[in-house]
C-alpha cells in the first residue's frame, strides 16, 4: 500500500517534454528524494503533484484518490503540502501568522461567529495559535514568533516555510531544495529536522542538490534526466549506477 502513486506522468510545454512518462511509488513514513541535473524536470514534477501544473498525461494517486489535475488548494486540503525553491512567505505577516494562515482549512467558524466573537470562535483561534506555536517549536523558531517574516535571515525563512507547510497538517510534505544557500551547520540541522518529520509520521519527498543530504537521509531515490526517470533505488544503488554517473558527469570518451 503506497501513499503516493505516480503513473506514467508526462508534462509537455508545447514541444518541450519537461517530464516524460515518469512513474514511482512512495511508501508512507519514508524520505524519498528526487535528484537530477539542472533542468531535469524536478520542479515541474513537483508542480504537477501539487496542482500548480496540469499533467499532460498520466495519473497521480494519493491515498487511493486520483488527484491529477485538481486545483492546488484542493490538493493541499487533501494532505499534500510543499515549500518553494525561491522562498514564498507572506512577507508582511509575522512568523506565527504565517503558520496560522496554513491552518485555514482547519477552521470551522464562519464570518458571523467571527464578528460576534462566539465562544467557539475564541476557542478555535486559541487552539490554532497554540498549534502554530508547536510547529514553530518543532522547527526551533519560537523566539522569532512576532518578527515580520520578510525581515528574517534566509535560513530562518526556509525553516518557516517548512513550518507553514507542516501546519496544513499534510501527511505528505514536498520540500524543494530545503538546504539551498545554507552553510554546513545549517544543512546539518535541516537534515535532523527532516528526519524528525519522518519520525512524526510524515512522508517527505525531497528535491535536493546536496548529495550529502540526499545520500544521508533518503530511503529511496529517483533520478531524472531531461524529464525521464533514469534510475530508482536506495542511496547505495544510485551511487553505483553508471547511468546516474553519466548524467551528472558525462560519458567517458576513451
Amino acid at each position, binding site marked *: 500500500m503506497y501513499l503516493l502513486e505516480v503513473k506514467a506522468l508526462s508534462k509537455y510545454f508545447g514541444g518541450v517534454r519537461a517530464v516524460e512518462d515518469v512513474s514511482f511509488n512512495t511508501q508512507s513514513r519514508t524520505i524519498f528524494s528526487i535528484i537530477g541535473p539542472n533542468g531535469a524536470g524536478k520542479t515541474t514534477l513537483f508542480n504537477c503533484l501539487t496542482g500548480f501544473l496540469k499533467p499532460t498525461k498520466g495519473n497521480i494517486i494519493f491515498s487511493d484518490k486520483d488527484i491529477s489535475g485538481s486545483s492546488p488548494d484542493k490538493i493541499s486540503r487533501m494532505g499534500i503540502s510543499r515549500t518553494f525553491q525561491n522562498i514564498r512567505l507572506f512577507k508582511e505577516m509575522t512568523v506565527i501568522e504565517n503558520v496560522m*494562515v496554513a491552518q485555514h482549512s482547519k477552521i470551522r467558524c464562519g464570518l458571523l461567529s467571527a464578528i460576534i466573537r462566539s465562544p467557539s470562535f475564541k476557542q478555535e483561534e486559541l487552539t490554532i495559535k497554540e498549534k502554530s506555536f508547536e510547529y514553530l517549536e518543532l522547527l526551533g523558531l519560537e523566539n522569532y514568533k512576532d518578527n515580520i517574516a520578510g525581515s528574517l535571515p534566509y535560513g530562518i525563512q526556509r525553516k518557516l516555510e517548512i513550518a507553514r507547510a507542516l501546519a496544513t497538517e499534510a501527511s505528505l510534505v514536498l520540500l524543494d531544495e530545503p538546504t539551498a544557500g545554507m552553510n554546513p551547520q545549517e544543512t546539518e540541522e535541516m537534515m535532523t529536522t527532516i528526519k524528525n518529520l519522518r519520525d512524526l509520521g510524515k512522508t517527505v519527498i525531497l528535491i535536493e542538490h546536496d548529495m550529502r543530504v540526499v545520500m544521508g537521509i533518503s530511503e529511496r531515490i529517483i533520478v531524472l534526466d531531461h524529464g525521464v526517470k533514469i534510475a530508482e533505488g536506495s542511496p547505495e544503488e544510485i551511487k553505483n549506477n553508471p547511468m546516474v554517473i553519466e548524467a551528472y558527469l558525462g560519458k567517458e570518451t576513451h
Partner: protein
Amino acid sequence: MKKLLEKTRKYLMPLIIALWFSFLLLPFKGIKASAFLFIVLSLAIPAMQLLSNFIKKIHLPQIDFNRYIPQDKRYLPLLLIPLAAVPFLAEDYIIDVAIMSGIYIILALGLNVVIGFTGLLNLGFVAFYAIGAYSYALINTNLGLGFWSAMPISVLLTTISGFLLAIPAMRLKGDYLAIVTLGFGEIVRLIFNNWDSFTKGPNGISGIDPPFLFILPIDSLPDFYYLVLLLVIISVFIMTRVKASKIGRAWIAIREDEIASSAVGINKTLHKLYSFAFGAFWAGLAGCLFAAKMRFVSPESFTFMESVLVLCMVILGGLGSIRGVIFGAIILVFLPEALREVQMYRMLALGAGLVLLMIFRPQGLFRGESVSTRS
C-alpha cells in the same frame, strides 16, 4: 579624459535639450518665443536635477504613527466622548463636513478590503457607492419604502453586484483588473446618466426621504451625525473582527503571495469573490447614507474622480490599516475644506501634498500593523 567627457556631457546636455525644444517651437511662435523657451529650459533643467539630487539626500525619520496611539482597546470608548460632543460644540458647517467624512470612512473601509487586504486594484469602486445610493433613491421614491427597510435591500443589491463584477474579474490580475474595474465604474455611471425613464438621467432623483426614528425624521444635521457615527462604529467594529478571522488572514495571504496562499489550502478565487462582495457591501451602505443625507442623487456625484479620491484615502492612511484608512478619509475630507481660504490653489496644494507623501512615505501613514495577533 573620460571624466572630462562626462563633465561636458553633464553641462552640455541641458543646453542641447533646451536648444532642441526651442528649435521645435521656432516655426510656430517665432524667434522671440524660442529664445525665451531656450533660456527658461536651460535654467530649469539643471534646477530640476539639483532638486532631485537634493530630495534623494533627505532621509526623513520614519515615524511609526502606530506608536502614538494607545494599543489598549480599553481606551477606545473614551474617544466616544469628544465624538458625541461634536454637535454641541461645532457649527453646522463642521458637522456637515464630519458627516461627509463619516460616509467616506465607511466607503474607504470597503475599498480597503479589496485593495488593502486582498491586494486587488479596483479603480471603479465608486460604482458600488452609486449602486447603493441609486438603489435607495429608487426604492424609496418608487416603492415608498423607508430607510430602514430600503437600506438592507440596497446593500444586498450592491453586494450582489460586487459578486457579479468579481466573477469575470477574478481571471485578471494587477493592471488588467484595474482597467476592467475602471470600465465597470464608467458603465454604471453612464447607465444612471442615460436611462432617463428609470433614473431621470442627468437631472438626478430628488425628494428622497430621510431616515425615520419611529415617526421622527432624522433630517437635522446633529441627528444625522449620530446616525453616521453609529454606523461608522459598527463598520469599524465588524471590520477589525473580520480582519482578525480566518477570512481576513486568507485575504492578506492572497495579497502577500497568491501562489503560496493556494499552496496552504486557500481557495483564492472564492476569497477574492468574498473580498469584492464584502467591500461592495460597505460601499452600498455608504451610498444609502449619502442618498439619505443629500436627499438627492445624480450621476455627477459618482465620477471616476470619486474613485480616485477614495483610493487616495486608502493609500494615504496605509494600505490594509483600518485606523490609517480612517485618518486618511478624515484628512482628505477636511483638508480641502480647511484650504478653502486659498480657493483655487487648494486642489494644487492637496495634490502636491500627496506627491510629497508618496516620495517620503510610500507605505502611507499607518502601514505595518499586524494582522491577527493584535486585533
